[in-house]
């Protein structure tokens, strides 16, 4: 009797969420794998033709897709470096004894809360109109011109906006790490005559290693999956020079109506994200062991 009521409670507590989760995530994931083996234009009445692995084979000869992979990798690597260097610098300044630290933290974190779509639009205006004007006033029109019309500069613009969005967020994580360092450790080092850079490189950095890992992981996965900023800032342009992975998949499915082929890209996208994450997690685990 008791057993049965326990089971009923279990079902009552767990089943509603498991049901929703299954219909929104699990089922689409499984049928998504299925779709990737078919050729289909997304119209219900038109036939879905089984093509086996053809969609996956086609991926590797798809120049536009390979280009988007290249942009995504360049973007991700450069953005990770920028975001982390800037975020860590901010965190070190904000945790120092400055009186302005609270207001500074407030201001630096603000861009993260404004969504990617809106941020992209703000900067679209800066890079097009404000930059042309600055170039006109200062005469430095080799640097200040409409960045979004030049393929390389448009990619750089995307990196700047992503940095602007995420540096404050990453700063918060580094701050948590730095504040976790016991004060007496720093004090002891200071008494022993360690200078600013000694303290920074020999004490602070080794002790915030876990924060490094978290921040690298966060920036990696956010940059790799970037979509909103991409959409509003450049829309993938000029002529697909800034089209990232996520946007390429979106366009393949919903603009070109290649539902099956686009889904194969989406599955590959998942596999890449999965592998990178697993590598990341295993490195983190190893480091935690050696730290102890």
């Amino acid at each position, binding site marked *: 009797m008791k057993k049965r009521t326990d089971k009923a409670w279990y079902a009552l507590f*767990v089943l509603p969420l498991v049901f929703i989760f299954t219909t929104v995530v699990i089922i689409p994931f499984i049928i998504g794998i299925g779709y990737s083996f078919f050729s289909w234009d997304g119209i219900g009445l038109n036939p879905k033709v089984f093509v086996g692995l053809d969609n996956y084979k086609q991926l590797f000869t798809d120049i536009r897709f390979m280009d988007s992979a290249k942009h995504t990798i360049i973007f991700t690597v450069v953005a990770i470096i920028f975001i982390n260097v800037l975020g860590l610098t901010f965190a070190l300044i904000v945790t120092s004894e400055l009186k*302005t630290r609270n207001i500074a933290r407030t201001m630096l974190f603000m861009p993260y809360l*404004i969504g990617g779509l*809106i941020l992209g639009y703000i900067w679209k*205006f800066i890079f097009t109109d*404000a930059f042309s004007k600055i170039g006109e006033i200062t005469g430095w029109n080799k640097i200040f011109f409409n960045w979004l019309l030049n393929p390389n500069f448009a990619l750089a613009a995307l990196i700047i906006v992503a940095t602007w969005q995420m540096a404050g967020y990453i700063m918060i994580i580094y701050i948590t790490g730095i504040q976790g360092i016991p004060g007496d450790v720093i004090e002891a080092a200071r008494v022993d005559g360690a200078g600013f850079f000694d303290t920074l490189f020999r004490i602070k950095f080794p002790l915030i290693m876990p924060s490094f890992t978290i921040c690298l992981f966060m920036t990696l996965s956010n940059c790799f999956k970037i979509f909103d900023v991409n959409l509003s800032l450049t829309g993938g342009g000029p002529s697909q020079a800034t089209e990232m992975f996520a946007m390429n998949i979106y366009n393949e499915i919903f603009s070109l109506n290649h539902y099956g082929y686009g889904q194969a890209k989406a599955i590959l996208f998942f596999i890449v994200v999965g592998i990178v994450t697993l590598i990341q997690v295993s490195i983190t685990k190893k480091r935690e062991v050696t730290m102890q």
Partner: protein
Amino acid sequence: MSGSYKLGKLGKMAGELLFLVICVFYLYPVFIVLINSFKNRAELYENVLALPNELNFKYYAEAMTKMNFTGAFINSFLVTAISITVIVVLSSMTAWMLVRSDGRFSRIIFMVFVSTMLIPFQTLMMPLMQTMGWIRDNLHIPMLNTLGGLIYMNVGFGASMAVFLYHGFVKSIPISLEEAATIDGCSKFGVFWKIVFPMLKPTTVTVMILDVIWIWNDYLLPSLVVSSKALRTIPLSTFSFFGQFTRQWNMAMAGLMLTIIPVIIFYLCAQKYIIKGVAAGAVK
């Protein structure tokens, strides 16, 4: 030896000032949007960097009607508030039960929740729309182009993270209180809502903050689910507004400010919780 620490009073003041200037410069793009939202077209094209001649709120009023800002705000608010309430209620119940009835079944469910956090949204978007379309056609439940459908899908996508955070926290709270309450004749439901849920408050705040930031700003999922104008959330109406007014920047700037202002107000009111929540959510 430790000379680099002691900059002297003047040096320190200069440092403070310099950092403040950097911070102000950091938010300069938002300032540019603000000043240009008051200008008329001729003024804007004359010099985008100059301050406006007068504080003209005309474009705000116009942008507000053209974006259907009030409607979009209400939609965004409803979707965010209801989604988060449901996520908090269902995820905390699920996580608690999974921890307290620890068995193979519970562990598998938990593993599935956690491992699916890896799946990017782009991998699910097309088959999700097909699934929801199938439910609409065959079970006659309006999942597409309704706010209810959008909320339902938000709950599905928010579940993993919330269950994960609650699961970690429940494991750290002692079971003795719950046992005492059970002996006193409290049902599981009573135990959870009267005793456990109040103790979960720190995690509830974290989940709420993370989900507000995500759902309020989410563009892609709502853009796929919602097609009618009246149901647009703020990011959707901003997107369509921008499509129409890219050559009318002053109007566009006023529209942007309208969407940023609620975020800034929310931030200034709940700053302490937001920063704590974001830090806690990332570190776990």
